[in-house]
């Protein structure tokens, strides 16, 4: 599961920011990768659209600065979503 999420997020970052995917690691921050702001919002949009989740705009609880942080955030949101769906069922 985790690898799948990470792979997909790295794919999205590489595609939207036209980056060599090999440059992206869990530790690389989006700032290190020199991703322009307009590409950033497109990355967030593509992630939300793919996983059907809503990334928070700004929150101390979520790390969206690094690629790894983004992966953890998405996994947390997916887990919360799964909980809610279970509770509903």
């Amino acid at each position, binding site marked *: 599961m985790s690898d799948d999420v990470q792979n997909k997020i790295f794919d999205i970052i590489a595609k939207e920011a036209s980056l060599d995917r090999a440059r992206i690691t869990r530790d690389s921050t989006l700032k290190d990768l020199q991703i322009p702001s*307009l590409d950033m919002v*497109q990355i*967030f*949009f593509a992630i939300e659209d793919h996983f059907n989740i809503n990334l928070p705009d700004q929150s101390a609880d979520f790390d969206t600065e690094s690629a790894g942080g983004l992966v953890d955030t998405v996994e947390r949101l997916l887990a919360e979503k799964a909980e809610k769906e279970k509770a509903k069922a």
Partner: protein
Amino acid sequence: MRRIVITGMGCIAAIGHTATACWASMREGRSGIGPLVNIETELLNVRIGAEVRGYDPLAHFDEKRLALLDRVTQFALIAAREAVAQSGIAFAGNGLSGRTAVVIGTGVGGQNTLDDSYRRLYMHNNPRCHPLTIPRLMANAPASHITMEHGITGPSFAVASACSSANHAVAMALFMIRSGLADAAVAGGTEACITVGTMKGWEAMRVMATDTCRPFSRGRRGMVLGEGAGIFVLETLENAKARGAVILAELAGAGMSSDAGDIVAPCDLGTARAIEAALADAGLATDAVDYVNAHGTGTTINDPTETRAIRRVFGADADRLAVSSTKSMHGHGLGAAGAIELVGVVGALSQGIIPPTANFTDRDPDCDLDYVPNVAREQLVRAAISNSFAFGGLNAVLALKRAA
């Protein structure tokens, strides 16, 4: 007073993807009106249009850049490239960049982007909106992208006056250069309005033809929507001569007026005032003009009203004028209309061939001028005017002279 000339033109429309191709179609009287192929027609009563067909955006823009460009901006960029290349003008390294204006008319702006985002939101209940929605749909996007692509840093903006947008934009550029505010301009109009939503809006006004567009002809049933862009490079006669540029025509003057009457019905008095103002600005007597590129939408009300306005201004000279509506071929491009039509005017002046009014069948007693029916005419054109009359009663007329 500074004299302003056109040294480059670009166009994309239903009748061609370049100004050269569009002019060839106009000269041959070939219409680009046909069944709609680019949009779903299930909900439509009117299923014809003058669409840009066989167009592959990826042949002009890479995928990454395309994400930023609504169809309306793509058209403007393609036409601007052609115009700038033809003129041979260079903006960088000679101080011209900051002395060049970009003024682009559009009736609405990114209508395809808006339509797509609403479909996603309201129809598919998808609450996520694409983050490039706003920069794609804003009405100044075409002007902005032209400045970015060509490194033009002078005063630049969009002009919106529905069907007169392009003529108002070209008029603004003319006055900016004449006043010394700029030394050159990239100006014109663009529109990409053939969406299901826009078609339904026009249908509801009951001014759309279901057969074809036959301006000034008996049996005309209305307008046909078109799309595309026309973009021109304007500069001073002095600059053009100094750099040995080919001068396509002189943009001698422009006239503008508002009807201050009905929000949709045209008015012969208001439109006549714009024609008079254009002639006065260009210093043209009525007997010096040989050709009128008409607004000529093909609606029952526009065509006789425009005929009366022409008669009112030109008097006895009206009977020796050639008047044609090229909308019969490229459709009504709304905010791009005057710019696409300017290709026909420049062609008439530079080549001595007057583009015809296509699809003309019989004479209408209320439209009693020479409309150059169906077949182009070889005739020296010393000077010409081009009419645009918008919903909202905003009129803009350009006056051009043959290059000396």
